[in-house]
């Protein structure tokens, strides 16, 4: 196990941030408690901003109305007609969830393998894993999906109906495995060095230390980051709908609006709301998990926070300086 000495231990990005102020705290820090004049000024700003918002809203509504997008007939089906949901939205949502779930399930072990390989004692193993991870993090997912789609068409006999799903999942797995590799690495490095020392002291081998001591603890530490990576995966499935003909939520907009009287705006609104609800559920779950883990007394208190994912998703120097 390659462990950095405790003194200059690279904490994961989330941990290295200075103690985060809560929303209420940072709000009161930047300005005084409003007195009478400040309250009047704030009221003025509120009114001005409200006027601006109203102007924008009026412009949008007038624009929509001019193109007959506000007719009740265009919005009604989503409430009154169960067939919209049965024929278009629910199967599409199912495909989105299947692709995202499959990608996560496949990317996780691959990512764990790559992450552990990047911490190996052998330089060759580290170099290979590092190259793979940096390569796939540097390339857009869409490029990977397009490649996978063409490769499946050329080298395998997967039927054209299921090929988009395969291509989408392959692209997502390649990209997310390398992001998760960084999450795993950060999770393992976040554990106190004493864990490795203690394992060594009782005579565990490197593999045993990893399998019985470090990995189990880092999994709990990584959970919030893993869940919020799921949000990224869910969002990226939409690429398959737009570019590969994968029948997910975004792809359901065209046939749906064609069948229900060109209600493009209504369809987009419903699809966007579905995506937001799905992802909000995931992020809420992730942050609740994170809070619980940070509070917990039984763990080592090492947590790779949900927001760390944003930093780990992009290529760059291997040892990231703490922000």
């Amino acid at each position, binding site marked *: 196990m390659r462990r950095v000495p405790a003194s200059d231990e690279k904490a994961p990005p989330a941990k290295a941030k200075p103690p985060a102020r809560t929303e209420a705290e940072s709000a009161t820090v930047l300005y005084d408690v409003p007195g009478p004049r400040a309250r009047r000024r704030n009221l003025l700003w509120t009114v001005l901003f409200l006027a601006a918002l109203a102007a924008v809203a009026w412009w949008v509504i007038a624009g929509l109305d001019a193109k007959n997008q506000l007719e009740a007939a265009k919005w009604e089906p989503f409430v009154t007609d169960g067939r919209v949901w049965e024929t278009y939205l629910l199967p599409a949502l199912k495909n989105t969830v299947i692709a995202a779930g499959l990608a996560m399930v496949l990317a996780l072990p691959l990512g764990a393998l790559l992450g552990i390989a990047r911490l190996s004692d052998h330089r060759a193993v580290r170099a290979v894993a590092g190259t793979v991870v940096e390569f796939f993090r540097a390339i857009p997912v869409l490029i990977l999906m397009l490649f996978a789609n063409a490769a499946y068409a050329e080298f395998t006999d997967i039927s054209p109906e299921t090929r988009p799903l395969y291509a989408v999942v392959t692209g997502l797995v390649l990209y997310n495995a390398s992001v998760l590799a960084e999450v795993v690495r950060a999770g393992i490095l976040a554990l106190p060095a004493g864990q490795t020392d203690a394992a060594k002291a009782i005579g565990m081998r490197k593999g045993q230390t990893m399998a019985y001591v470090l990995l189990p603890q880092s999994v709990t530490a990584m959970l919030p980051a893993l869940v919020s990576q799921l949000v990224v995966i869910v969002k990226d499935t939409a690429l398959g709908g737009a570019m590969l003909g994968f029948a997910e939520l975004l792809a359901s907009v*065209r046939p749906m609006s064609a069948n229900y009287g060109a209600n*493009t705006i209504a369809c987009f609104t419903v699809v966007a709301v579905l995506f937001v609800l799905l992802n909000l559920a995931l992020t809420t779950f992730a942050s609740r998990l994170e809070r619980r883990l940070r509070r917990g007394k039984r763990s080592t208190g090492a947590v790779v926070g949900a927001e760390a994912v944003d930093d780990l998703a992009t290529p760059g120097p291997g040892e990231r300086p703490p922000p």
Partner: protein
Amino acid sequence: MFDFLEGYDLLGAFWVTVQLTFWSALGSLVWGTLLAAMRVGPVPLMRAFGTAYVTVVRNIPLTVIIVFTSLGLFQTLGISLGADRFTTINFRLAVLGLTAYTSAFVCEALRSGINTVPLGQVEAARAIGLSFPQILRIIVLPQAFRSVVGPLTNVLIALTKNTTVAAAIGVAEAALLMREMIENEAQLILVSAVFAFGFICLTLPTGLLLGRLAKKVAVKR
């Protein structure tokens, strides 16, 4: 070996990618800063608006936003952003969509930077009677920007990769050319390798250079 490249404007496609990245980065830096200012400001309504915007936009796939700019804004509502040729319209729509999406991430990065500015700085500023806009402009944002060069670099790299989504509405950038070349040429692996290399050339140096800059300008505390 590379004769399959003939007849394709590879550099032109990557140039469009760079242009998309540049204009969207500029736009989202401005709009993201405004959003961050709203989110930390004293006006409750603006705070609520900033929070709602970031929450909603961050949870919608970029692809949905980009396709909406074309299908919804342009084809349904007839908003063409002052352009009259299809290529220009799509380019501007893509920049609009990318800006709307990326600024939510810029806002969050900036806000975390604002949180790193020590309390004493703002307290001192308030003590000498600076108003909220003054505090933000003179004291807080300059320090916040210096400490978020690293996170903003990550946002920029993600934006560079995200510009490929513009292919969904037919902007002639790298991913669209790749799809065309895959269809027409036999050398799948080579074509893909060329495009992968192109993106590595765009993202890796950005990360390295700006990463070094981040270390240099970060406020030592």
